[in-house]
């Protein structure tokens, strides 16, 4: 397989799961952007290393869709920081997406193992 096609496949597979993972990370508690990037990176052992220029537009999009709520908190330094939390809609969507993800993984493994 040509390297460029393989890389694109891998990127597409990752992209397909990132929004679920962002919601899952925020689902554990209110977080700001850097915390989300750090947690995603650490829990995935560096597999999901999001660029900041990618994360924040994704967060804004999820907020516009009603899955996230944001609030600005003034830090002790005086600088504002934006925190994100799940809305009830976001919590419900996360729960359903997690179930769907488990099914996706199970069924994909059935096919992959069956084809060996």
């Amino acid at each position: 397989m040509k390297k460029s096609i393989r890389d694109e496949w891998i990127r597409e597979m990752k992209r397909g799961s990132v929004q679920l993972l962002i919601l899952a990370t925020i689902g554990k508690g209110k977080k700001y952007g850097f915390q989300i990037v750090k947690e995603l990176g650490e829990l995935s052992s560096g597999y999901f290393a999001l660029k900041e220029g990618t994360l924040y537009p994704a967060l804004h999009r999820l907020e516009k869709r009603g899955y996230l709520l944001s609030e600005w908190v003034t830090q002790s330094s005086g600088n504002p920081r934006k925190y994100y939390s799940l809305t009830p809609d976001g919590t419900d969507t996360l729960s359903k997406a997690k179930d769907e993800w488990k099914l996706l993984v199970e069924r994909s493994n059935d096919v992959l193992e069956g084809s060996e």
Partner: protein
Amino acid sequence: MTQNSLDGYLGKVNMHLLGIPSDARAGILAELRDHMEVQASEVGTTPDSYIMDRTIKPESPKKVAKRYKGVYGYSNLFKVLFAIVGIILGIATIPVWELVSPGFSSSFWLLVLIVYLYWVGTRAGKRVGFAVGLAVALSRLVLLSIIATALTPQGAILDSGLAFAFGLTSLILVFIGFIPGEARKKWKERAEIEFR
């Protein structure tokens, strides 16, 4: 403005964010600034050094701003400006200016208008593309009617064939901005997510 500092980098992002609502822009920049300051502190460097660090490579301001535009779209002011430019181009496409100035080519301006509406549809989305196309079509039809009536009291300048062709062209213009905006949306969202 150089990109060799956090202020310079964010200044370039701000420049490329031109067109989206101003309250959204302020929030975007504040959030990016906070992230980069924390990131720099985490790796034990200054924000300005973080921007310059080639191993970290912050994304290009243009690319970052483009993703936000995909989320927020253009402000109402810009949507109105798109429509005004479209209407002006539309006026130039009315096939009567050749009577006034033989060297003028309304067909050329029609091609320019088609390219412009396609550009609006792909940049600003299908709704804006459709609205601008509609504004252009309506203004063309109204203006042609006024001109045709003014030039000959009986409107004889406008035969049925020309009127039909003009009406059909105007109708097509309405949809030119709509279709590319619809097609582009399908792949845009997923393509916006990038990894280190």
